[in-house]
């Protein structure tokens, strides 16, 4: 007798809906065992992770702040992935947008430039992110190059460019040679939504991006084209949809969103340009995009959930002295279970009895 995975004749929509829940359930079950092995009370630990951060306004704000760049980037990535265009370099577009937007902030520093500074920074960052994403897209369309490789390699280019600028021309002259620009002027800073908190305008922009993507995908021809090109390329060709054009479009949109997320992070929570502005947002957003099953609302939920595990992980570290590594194990396990459960959408378990087959063969 053996257990095999058998392809379903059609995808199971029920499983598609409950699969993330099963994944979360399995993760929590495994974590409970892990906490018990570590000698920590599992109920208290899970409380610190999931409940405590949801019970006060401060933590809720922090969750929103942390989720903002993740959601914004993941929305763009989802459009790409739905159209079968594989943008892996959102991290680079994030950094490039941050650099481009910061250029205005650095050049207007100490001048009496007015309220146009921040909007100009946002627009320039989005444009720069889009242009940066167009490099792999055009290479793909014109030369058939791998957009995965090119977009990934461009991450390092953007990273080193940022590094060069903050160590060289843009370095804070009063910063003792440390690699950072001076703090941005207030006209170059993303406004806060709540006095004394850290919640900023970026979170609203992220929500707008979610809504726009939901409408685009659900209500417009363009959205339909994106989905058809991704799901059934041959049908799309017969339908007269131009797949190359869509690759260009989705890359540009996702680059723009990543670039926008980059400048919002720099002009918001960080306040100046420095190396290490992104703890891997562009890559974590890939997880968020898939965790949210490439659906805008799903991505919003997934982004908030992942942010919750970050904030909860810190609170567990403080309140229960649970090592940070456990938070990382936790996130890894979550992704593992999500992918594992997803295979159940297209496959199902089946018990196979080899003896019977042999008998049939003999007969």
């Amino acid at each position, binding site marked *: 007798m053996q257990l095999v995975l058998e392809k379903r004749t059609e995808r199971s929509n029920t499983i598609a809906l409950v699969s993330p829940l099963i994944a979360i359930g399995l993760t929590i079950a495994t974590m409970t065992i892990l906490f018990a092995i570590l000698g920590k*009370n599992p*109920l*208290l630990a899970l*409380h610190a992770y999931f409940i405590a951060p949801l019970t006060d306004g*401060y933590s809720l704000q*922090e969750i929103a*702040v*942390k989720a903002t760049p993740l959601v914004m980037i993941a929305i763009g990535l989802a459009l790409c992935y739905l159209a079968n265009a594989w943008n892996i370099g959102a991290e680079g577009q994030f950094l490039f947008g941050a650099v481009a937007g910061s250029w205005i902030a650095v050049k207007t520093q100490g001048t009496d430039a007015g309220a146009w500074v921040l909007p100009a920074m946002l627009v320039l960052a989005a444009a720069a992110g889009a242009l940066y994403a167009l490099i792999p897209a055009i290479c793909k369309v014109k030369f058939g190059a791998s957009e995965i490789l090119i977009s990934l390699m461009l991450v390092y280019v953007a990273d080193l460019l940022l*590094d060069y600028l903050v*160590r*060289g021309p843009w*370095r804070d002259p009063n910063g*003792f*040679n*440390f*690699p950072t620009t001076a*703090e941005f002027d207030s006209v170059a800073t993303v406004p806060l939504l709540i006095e*004394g908190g*850290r919640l900023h305008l970026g979170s609203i922009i992220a929500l707008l991006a979610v809504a726009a993507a939901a409408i685009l995908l659900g209500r417009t021809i363009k959205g339909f084209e994106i989905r058809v090109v991704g799901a059934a390329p041959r049908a799309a060709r017969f339908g007269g949809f131009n797949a190359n054009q869509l690759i260009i479009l989705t890359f540009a949109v996702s680059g723009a969103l990543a670039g926008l997320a980059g400048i919002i*992070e720099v002009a918001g*929570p*960080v*306040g*100046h340009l*420095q*190396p*290490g*502005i*992104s*703890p891997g947002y562009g890559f974590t957003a890939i997880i968020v995009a898939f965790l949210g099953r490439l659906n805008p609302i799903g991505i919003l939920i997934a982004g908030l959930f992942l942010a919750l595990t*970050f*904030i909860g992980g*810190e*609170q567990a*570290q*403080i*309140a229960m*002295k649970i*090592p*940070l*590594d456990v938070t990382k194990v936790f996130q890894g396990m979550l992704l593992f279970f999500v992918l594992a459960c997803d295979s159940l959408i297209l496959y199902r378990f089946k018990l196979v009895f080899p003896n019977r087959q042999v008998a049939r063969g003999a007969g």
Partner: protein
Amino acid sequence: MRKSLVALAAGLLLAGSVSAASAADKLKVGFIYLGPIGDLGWTYQHELARQALVKELGDKIETTYLENVPEGPDAERAIEQLVRAGNKLIFTTSFGYMDPTLKVAKKYPNVHFEHATGYKRNANMSTYSSKWYQGRYIQGLIAAKMSKSGVLGYIGSFPIPEVVSGINATMIAAQTINPNIKVKIIWANTWFDPGKEADAAKALIDQGADVIMQHTDSPAAMQIASERGKLAFGQDSEMIKFGPKTQLTSILDTWAPYYIERVKAELDGTWKSEDTWGGLDSHMFAMAPYTNMPDDVKKIAEDAQAAITAGKLHPFKCPVIGQDGKEIECKGGANLADGQILGMNFYVKGIDDKLPGK
């Protein structure tokens, strides 16, 4: 069944809050660490000091730390989390936490902050650092004596004043022994990345360096030097077990006395914002035993250490000659002023390299 689970959960939560209440009388002291506590370097030394603190004052305080906190947008939140968990004195132990610490400090005027190696202060935010360049001077003497090739290998982290002053102090000392000494410098652009650090050590040895010094935190370079049969200096912590026949000495960060002193001040209510920049005389750091060298070299090192501790020898004694052969303006009387060392942004004569960003 479900009801009993809920009851159990409620009971556990209540138990949790009761124990929190009994700990409320203790002073809560928080720490933010850059690396993992197992980095065997910078963060490890802060962790050792925290443990010493607990040993000394454990009945009066409760400590908490957050490790692996990146110096980016997450730092401010991590610090604020410690504040919100009731910590009244918080040590943020890396330069990159400077602006986030200041932001949180301004928001919570009743909480006291101690920031390592920075230069921004506030009424409730002190800074503390060590005159490591004194130790670098001693290492420069040893290195020049021990190098057969006359080429030293230096793994820099970031070209910031602390690191640059270390390179300069090393070279000024080395030149007193061997005026033609050369130094090869590689910038790892990281504080902690064992892979990069090992690559840098290999590259330096391939360029002819036979004594490796580092301003990064892991023992990787020590291991490479050991494999290749070269000599090396440890950094931050005792690294002799990674190179029993390799380590000459190591600059040991000894934060414990400072941490104990500051926590005691907090307990007494006498804490105030200060700028502490201690050297060998104030025990902010120590030199690991001088090993793998002949007795005459050991004596040179010990004599220099005694002279620096006694204040008779200053590594940046004027005149200090810059790379271009011109004398650096001497703002501190007989020696360079502290401010000139804290903001050091030039190489001294004899360093055949260009300071990044210059």
